[in-house]
Structure formats: C-alpha cells, structure tokens
C-alpha cells in the first residue's frame, strides 16, 4: 500500500468542486479550503440567504449548470473536510513537510498537504482612467456579484463599458432586474465582431445568446457604441456620468452620458499568487498578456505535488474549469499511483473550449493602446494613490525596465490589493515606456500574505489544525 495521501483543494468554484469530487470517488477525503461563505465560486456564487429567485432567475442561461454543481457539492459535503471563509495566505515548508498557512475566523492555522490542487479563480481585469476610484464606478464582475449574490444593482441608471462577452450579459441582466441601462460602450471596434461568425460554427449557443442579449438591449432602446475609450468619470464624490471618445467613420467624436453608476472591465485576470508562492514556474501567455503558471494538459505544474485548474490557470470559463478540475485530480491520482484513467475525452472537450476562447478573444480584444491617451494625473494604483505621471517619472529617473524594480521604487503593486487592480496597467505602462512587448518587463512576484491579514497575528505560533 502506498503512502497515505492528504490532498488539499484551494477554492470551491467549478474547478475546485469537480476536483474534490474526483478525489472522493477514488476513496480520498480531501480538505477543501474556500474563501467564500458558500461553495460555488464567483460564477455560481450563492446568496447568503435565499431571496425568492429561482435558479433561472439568478443564473439565467447557466441555471442548469449552477444547480448541478451546487447539488454535486452538497452530495460531496459529508465526504470532504470543507472549510468556508478560509483564506490561504502562504505556502511554506518545514521538516514536517509542506504546509498552508490559513486564516479562518481570525485564527491562524497550518494545514499539511501531500498534494495541492489550486483552483483560485480570477478577478476582473481592469485598467485605470480618470475617475475610476469615484464611488459608483465598479468592475463589471462587481456589478454582477451585487445582483447575483445580494439582489442589488449598483446604481439605477447604469453605463456598462469594456470588452468581453460578460459586458452584454450583465447589461441585459440589469435591464431585467429593473435598472435603467443607459448605454453599453464596447471598447472593441464593431469590425471585431465579425469573428463571432467564425465562432458560430463551433459554438452556436454562445453566439446565439450574445446576439439575443444585444438585440434585446437594442429593442429596449439601449445605446450600444463601439470603439469607445473613456475620457473621465464625471462627478467627484459620486458618479454622475461618463465622458468618452469613440471612433466613427467620420472621425473621432467625444460624447457624454449621464449615469449614477459605471460597471466596466476587460475580461478576467487569473489569480496566480499561490502558484507563485509554491514556486511553480511561469510562462508569458501572449493572448492574455499575462504570466501564468506552466501546466501540462492535465494541470500538472513544474512542481510535482502542485496542480492547477480553472481560471486561475488561465482564463477559459466555467465549463472548462469543471473539466480541468476533474483532470487535475486525475493527474494527481495517477501520479500517486492510485488510478490511471482515460483522460482523452475530457482533454478533447477542454481543447474545444480553448479554441472557442481564442476566437472569443478576437471578438472582444484587449484595448492594447490604452495608455497612449490616459492623462498623466490619472491614479494608477488605487491603494497607494500613485499617479501615471509619478510612475512614468520613476521609470525615467531610474531607467527602470523591470516590473519588480518598478514596484520597489514606486510602490505600485505594494498596496493592499498586491497589484490585483494595477498590475495589468503597470505592465502595459512600463512596456510602453520601454518600447518593448509586455513579456519583456518581467513578472510581478507574489508575496505572503497574499491578502491582508490582521496585524496582530502572524508572528505568533499557529494553532493546531482541528
């Protein structure tokens, strides 16, 4: 008989739940650590109390998947050690082996693991512009979370801006919930949408849904604009409107629109801090312009006992996350000599989704020219309130060409969010200033604790795992 396994799954979204499920099926009892209050992750996030909405009412076209995932988790619960509201803030190594440092209900504990499956998900990818810190300006994901989990809309007269399929979906959901959607401002040019025709061949459902949302918004009289770049949020203590430019056949025009909330974002950004602390090797992903942990098709990282799955290993969406969670668990079982399974079908299914993603990315491209027009006085770092001008000065005076050096000298990425909200912007800004591509400025290294923990602790001895 081989060594006893003590696998730990971090995250309880689609990837984490499916990973845990596969481990349970092999007779293991994994520990599942979840920052959320209830399993489901962000996409299938559940409210703190029921609010009378059906699955259909809350998750729309994805209701079936959400319900199946939640049911799978409920069935799993007696067979796993599930810890909600638990932050994993460090990964360390001692003579005892590998440990995770966790914070739960204000108590620091250490958890031993033989194998780790990281399913840490993603956050919105955002870029700075004047007024993005004003109350009422939220990420696109935030606007959806408010509605899904809390039954609230951010504002009542809302403008949606950015790039990504979520843009039209959330605008439509807001309209359905009774908000007055003022406009959908797509930063991509209309011409980019021709790629949806190619996507329709591979994924007709995705395209049909997108077209449906767009048409319903248009029928309701919602203004939809393409090729938009924001100039500024209007209002200083609260969002009162948005001024933006857009390219038209006749040239560039500047327009303003009144609103009491703005929701914006540019697809998602993988949460990779724990993979970094685990010492996993990273590579630069050209399409998403970010550094991601290296992984094989099953989710093995460069470290033999660490696996990754879901959007935290590269943005591919919830369906791919479910598959990759299961695959990572299968890889773990195989490596531990517990089972070898036929992965071909799952790998093929995931590859199909990845190919669709590539097309989707072309239909909703990242606005790579962003910093060409962002004014110097714009706040780049929300936490430490550092402006674009200050960062540019630091870059110039220190002849900086590397992102960690920029962090050390400018404090960008050193604040409470640890670069989650500014690293995409900082990398674009630095690579632009150096005249190189974003991969050449290096990778912002993660530091423990990966999220703020109470000051009065951490120095003390961790309490026993129980």
């Amino acid at each position: 008989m081989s060594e006893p396994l003590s696998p730990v799954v971090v995250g309880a979204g689609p990837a984490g739940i499916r990973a845990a499920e596969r481990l349970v099926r092999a007779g293991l009892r994994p520990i599942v650590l979840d920052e959320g209050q209830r399993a489901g992750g962000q996409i299938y996030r559940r409210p703190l109390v029921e609010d009378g909405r059906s699955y259909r009412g809350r998750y729309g076209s994805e209701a079936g998947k959400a319900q199946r995932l939640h049911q799978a988790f409920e069935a799993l619960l007696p067979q796993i050690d599930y810890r909600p509201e638990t932050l994993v803030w460090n990964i360390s190594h001692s003579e005892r082996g590998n440990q995770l440092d966790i914070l739960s209900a204000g108590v620091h504990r250490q958890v031993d693991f033989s194998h780790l499956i990281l399913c840490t998900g993603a956050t919105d990818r955002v870029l700075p512009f004047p007024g993005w810190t004003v109350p009422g300006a939220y990420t696109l994901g935030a606007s959806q979370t408010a509605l899904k989990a809390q039954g609230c809309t951010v504002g009542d007269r809302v403008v949606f801006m950015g790039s990504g399929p979520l843009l039209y979906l959330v605008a439509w959901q807001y309209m359905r919930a009774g908000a007055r959607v003022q406009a959908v401002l797509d930063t991509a040019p209309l011409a980019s949408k021709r790629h949806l025709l190619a996507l329709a061949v591979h994924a007709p459902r995705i395209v049909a849904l997108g077209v449906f949302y767009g048409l319903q918004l248009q029928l309701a009289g919602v203004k939809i604009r393409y090729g938009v770049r924001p100039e500024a949020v209007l209002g200083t203590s609260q969002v009162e409107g948005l001024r933006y430019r857009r390219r038209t056949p006749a040239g560039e025009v500047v327009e303003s629109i009144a609103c009491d909330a703005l929701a914006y974002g540019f697809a998602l950004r993988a949460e990779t801090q724990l993979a970094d602390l685990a010492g996993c090797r990273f590579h630069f992903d050209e399409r998403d312009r970010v550094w991601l942990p290296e992984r094989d098709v099953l989710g093995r990282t460069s470290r033999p006992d660490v696996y990754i799955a879901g959007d935290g290993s590269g943005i591919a969406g919830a369906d791919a996350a479910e598959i990759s969670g299961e695959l990572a668990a299968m890889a773990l079982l195989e490596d531990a000599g517990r089972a070898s399974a036929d992965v071909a079908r799952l790998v093929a299914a995931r590859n199909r989704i990845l190919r669709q993603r590539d097309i989707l990315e072309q239909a909703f491209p990242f606005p790579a020219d962003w910093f060409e027009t962002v004014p110097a006085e714009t706040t780049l770092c929300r936490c430490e309130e550092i402006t674009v001008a200050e960062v540019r000065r630091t870059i110039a005076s220190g002849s900086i060409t590397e992102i960690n050096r920029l962090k050390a000298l400018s404090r960008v990425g050193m604040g409470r969010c640890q670069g989650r909200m500014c690293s995409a912007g900082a990398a674009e800004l630095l690579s632009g200033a150096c005249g190189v591509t974003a991969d050449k400025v290096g990778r912002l290294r993660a530091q423990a604790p990966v999220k703020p923990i109470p000051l009065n602790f951490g120095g003390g001895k961790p309490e026993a795992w129980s």
Partner: protein
Amino acid sequence: MSMNPLLRRRYRLDETPVPFVLNGVAETGRRGDTVLTAILSVSGSLRQSEFTGEKRAGFCLIGACQDCYVMMADGRRVRACSTALLPGMAFITDVGAMAEIGHE
C-alpha cells in the same frame, strides 16, 4: 453633503430588518446583507482614502481590491464586501459626519 445611496435593492425587499448604526445614526439593513450592501443601500461611500481623502465605495465586491475597508465604532476594520451584517454593528464611514452629530 447629501449623497444618494449607491445600491438599489431589487430582491429580498421584505427580508427581516437588521438594525445597525452608521456615523451615529440608526439605520436598517436586511438579513443576508453584506456590510457593503447595508451601508451603500443608505449612503454613498464606505471610507476616505488615506492619502488624498477621496471617498471610496469598494470596487470588485469579491475580496480582491481591498477598497471596501470600513472602520467600526470599536476601532476594528472589516472588509465590507465579504463580511456579513450582524445586528447592532456600528460603522464610521465619515469622520466629519460623526463630529457634526457630536456638536448638535
């Protein structure tokens, strides 16, 4: 300084009320609220930034941006978007507003 509430409730309207205190004034949230939802359903910001004093009201709502820290009357700070509202919690989001009440 009269700011409009930032959030609009669309569901859970008849949910059990949960009393809390905001800048010395009694307010009501709902069972199932986060601290962020409760505060921003009746006001327009959560805190002032450390350096410029700008008003802030959270940004990501999923515990990533750390923009939503709120000071409690007992001096503790909580991350409003990921903390459940409990009856009797007391928050200070506007030091100026507290001072005015004190002088009334």
